[in-house]
Each structure stands twice: as structure tokens, then as C-alpha cells.
């Protein structure tokens, strides 16, 4: 479980996050949604430790990561997996080497055990056939799947995804969403996904935070979200013509 308490972050005089508190449970896919510039990426970076907030606490199963020293922070990061917006696969390595990398770096297993684990992860994301390819030979969706395989290689307790469907078609987005959701349930991981994809919201939103103006404007799940009277959220949700028409028909 991850708990954030009173997170406050500002750049210069501009406040980006103002007093954000939330709890992200194990085995749940939590989504952070909001317009571009709402502070989603900054919040995710504060949670994973790529940015330090001015105030607040980030508790990983009760451990405040912001008070950790460098060594403790590095150890915590070995319990994390992250899927970046650009997949961030290492160009100089093949797909298999990318997945093997965290295992080679930190696992005490033998080479054959590491190889077996990497192949298992690639099989889990249905990418075993592409193991010898280099990242630039893969499509956007395949790159995201390879990045998921790399993120889960060390059996993380926490999984973070920054705009996992960015640049993908709706069908591929669905595959990525179901993969993230499936892995979360299967391994009982605490997963936080940063997105503005409405399909993801409706498919995998066990827990949803809507950020607006650096504050949590609404919190709930995919079943509640269509029945809210929060004007900002409704404006955000129904900004798409298709959704407006579907909602109008209903």
C-alpha cells in the first residue's frame, strides 16, 4: 500500500500540487487523471522519488520514503517497476537484454535462472518471439509490452505507469490496459497509472483520482465516475464528442 499525505510541490512561485493526500491499495489499479498541466506527472514523480516535494509524506507500507537516505532509497526502488510514456527501452540492448538488465544488476540468481525469468516475463506479455529484436524494430505497443516485461522482471511490489497508452491506437491501448490490470491482480501489486485515456478509466479504474489545479477534485471508481455532479470532472470526461453523444442517448 502507498499512502501520500499533504504533498505540496511548487516550481518557483507556481504551486503545482497543493496538499494532496490519497491511499493506493494493493491489488488495485489506481488511476490519476486530469487535463494536461494538472500535475499528474509531477505527482507521480514525487511518489516514485524522481522529484522531492516541499511538504508531505510518501509512505510505502508505512515507510516514509522522503526521509530515506540514498542507500534506502535505492533499495526501495528495487521494489518498484515503472512504465514510462516513451517505454524508455535501452537502445543498445535487445528486447531480451532489456528484460534481463534489472536481473543482471540486482538478482543473485544464476544466469540460467535469470534467463528463465526474463523469458517468462516476455511470455507473460506475449513477446517471446521478439526477444532478439532491438527496440527500434518494435511497434509502439510492442515497446510498451517489452517495458512492462522489464518492469515486472524483479517481481516489484509497486508498479507505476506514466501515460501507458500515449500514442497507441484504442485496440492496442486496451491490450496494454488489460496487461497492467491483470499483472496487478495476479501479483497483488500496488499500481498507479497516470492517464487521460477515458477507455482506461472505464476499463481498469479500480480507484480514480481526478486532479485539477494541483488539487484532488474528485475521488472514486469507474462505476461512480459517470454519475458525478463534479462540473470540472464532467467537462473533462465529456470533452469528447463521441462520449457526449453516447451520454446524450442514455
Amino acid at each position, binding site marked *: 500500500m502507498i499512502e501520500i499525505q499533504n504533498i505540496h510541490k511548487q516550481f518557483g512561485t507556481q504551486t503545482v500540487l497543493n496538499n494532496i493526500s490519497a491511499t493506493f491499495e494493493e491489488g488495485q489499479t489506481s488511476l490519476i487523471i486530469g487535463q494536461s498541466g494538472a500535475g499528474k506527472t509531477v505527482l507521480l514523480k514525487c511518489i*516514485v522519488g*524522481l522529484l522531492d516535494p516541499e511538504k508531505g509524506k510518501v509512505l510505502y507500507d508505512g515507510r516514509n520514503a522522503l526521509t530515506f537516505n540514498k542507500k534506502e*532509497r*535505492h*533499495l*526501495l*526502488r*528495487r521494489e*518498484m*517497476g*515503472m512504465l*514510462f*510514456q*516513451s517505454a*524508455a*527501452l*535501452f*537502445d*543498445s540492448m535487445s528486447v531480451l537484454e532489456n528484460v534481463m*538488465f*534489472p536481473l*543482471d*544488476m*540486482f538478482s543473485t540468481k544464476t544466469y540460467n535462472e535469470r534467463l528463465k525469468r526474463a523469458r517468462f516475463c516476455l511470455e507473460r506479455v506475449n513477446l517471446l518471439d521478439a526477444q532478439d529484436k532491438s527496440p527500434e524494430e518494435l511497434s509502439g505497443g510492442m515497446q510498451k509490452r517489452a517495458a512492462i516485461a522489464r518492469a515486472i522482471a*524483479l517481481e516489484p511490489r509497486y508498479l*507505476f505507469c506514466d501515460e501507458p497508452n500515449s500514442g497507441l491506437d484504442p485496440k492496442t491501448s486496451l491490450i496494454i490496459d488489460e496487461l497492467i490490470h491483470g499483472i496487478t491482480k495476479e501479483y497483488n501489486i500496488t499500481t498507479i497509472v497516470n492517464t487521460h485515456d477515458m477507455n482506461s478509466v472505464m476499463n481498469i479504474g479500480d480507484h480514480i483520482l481526478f486532479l485539477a489545479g494541483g488539487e484532488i477534485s474528485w475521488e472514486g471508481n469507474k462505476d461512480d465516475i459517470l454519475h458525478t455532479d463534479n462540473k470540472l470532472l464532467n467537462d473533462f470526461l465529456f470533452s469528447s464528442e463521441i462520449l457526449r453523444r453516447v451520454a446524450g442517448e442514455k
Partner: protein
Amino acid sequence: MFIAKSIKTFGSYLLLMRRVFARPESGRIFMRQTMREIFQLGIDSIPIVLLISFFIGAVICIQMKLNIENAWMPKFVVGYATREIMLLEFSSSIMCLILAGKVGSNITSEIGTMRVTQQIDALEIMGVNSANFLIMPKVTALIAMIPILVIFSIVAGIVGAYAIGFFTGIMTPDDLTCGLQYEFQQWYIWCSIIKAIFFAYIITSVASFYGYTVEGGSIEVGKASTDSVVSCSALILFADIVLTQLLMQ
């Protein structure tokens, strides 16, 4: 303003170097990366070093012959001057200026691209000391390879001088050999290698710093590459003065 910015940049460089010179998390991966960099930065640079050194050796020989030819001047002076120029300056300083362009821009663009495509963030999230993982093998590899490149450059320059003598007939091989051996001091070779080791450190660390601290996109990566070559060249020239003064006294 400029001084404050320079001090801040130097401070950031020192902080980065503190992270670079840490114990690698995995010795096996460090060795693997270092071997890769030895090929990429060192072995791949051999052809350009040989090519440029060969022609510069030949040109120095022609210039010396044309400009200092005099009845009072012994013929072996051409070989002597060619050797001294190759040994003392070209094969260390000028060759490293050339490498600053080839290797320095390569390092900056590689690390800069990794920064803007979030590959460095991915390393950090995994709990890897990205500065150590990316930069230390480059520094180690070029420092390990630079003595070999210096020796290759000296040899190629001398072969170039012999070749021009042979093909144009402006000098006999005996006169050239006599000049090359005249008052030879082994220490000059060591000077050249020592200077080149310092320059190799400047090239790899400064170029890595520019790449590692890139913010933005491809335009910024291109700009950082240019800035890194300019800074490396200026620092090599400055270090050359200091090292020459210290080593040749």
C-alpha cells in the same frame, strides 16, 4: 552573471563526478560496459587516428624540408623536427582535439538522447546509479585506450614522413632515420601519454556532463553536443599549457 553561471556549472560537474566515481553495483556489468566502450570509443577511433597522423606526418616532413632547407642546416633536421612535433604535440594534444570532436560529440549525443527519452530515469527508478553506470565505463575505456592511440599516432606520423620521402624523393630514408634517432629522449613519449591520459579524462567526463544534464528535446541534444566539443577543446588547450609546463621543466 557569466562567472556565477560558470561556478554553478563547475559545481554541478563536481557533484556529478562524485556520483560517477562510486563503486559499481555489479562488477560483471561494469566490465561488460567497459569492453563495449573500449570498442566504441577506442578501437573505432583507430582508423581516423592512423589516417590523420599519417598525412600530418607526411605534411610536416614536406613543410620542414621546404622551409628550413639551407646549406648550413644538416639534412637530418627534417626528421628530427618531424619527430619532435609528432611526439610532443600532435600525437597527444592535436589528436585529442580531433577525438574531442569524434568521441566527445558521440558521448554527449548518446547520453543526451538517453536523458530525453527517459532511459536515464528508467535506470534511476530501477535503483541503478545512472551516472556511475553510464559514465565510469566511458572514462575507464578511453583512459585505457589512449596510450595505444598515442603510440599508433606517433608510428603513423613517422610512417607518413618515410612514405613522402620515398614517393617524392625529397629525403633519403637514411637522413630521416638519422633525424628521428638524433637526441631521442624516451621521456617525451611518456609526456605525450601522460598528457593524453588527462585529455582523455577531460573528453569523456565533460562530454558526459553535457549529455547527462540536457533538458528538452533533440535540438537541445544537438546544442549540447556542439557545446561539449567547444568546452572539451578549450579545456584541452588550457590543460596542454599547464601540463607542458609541468612535464617539460
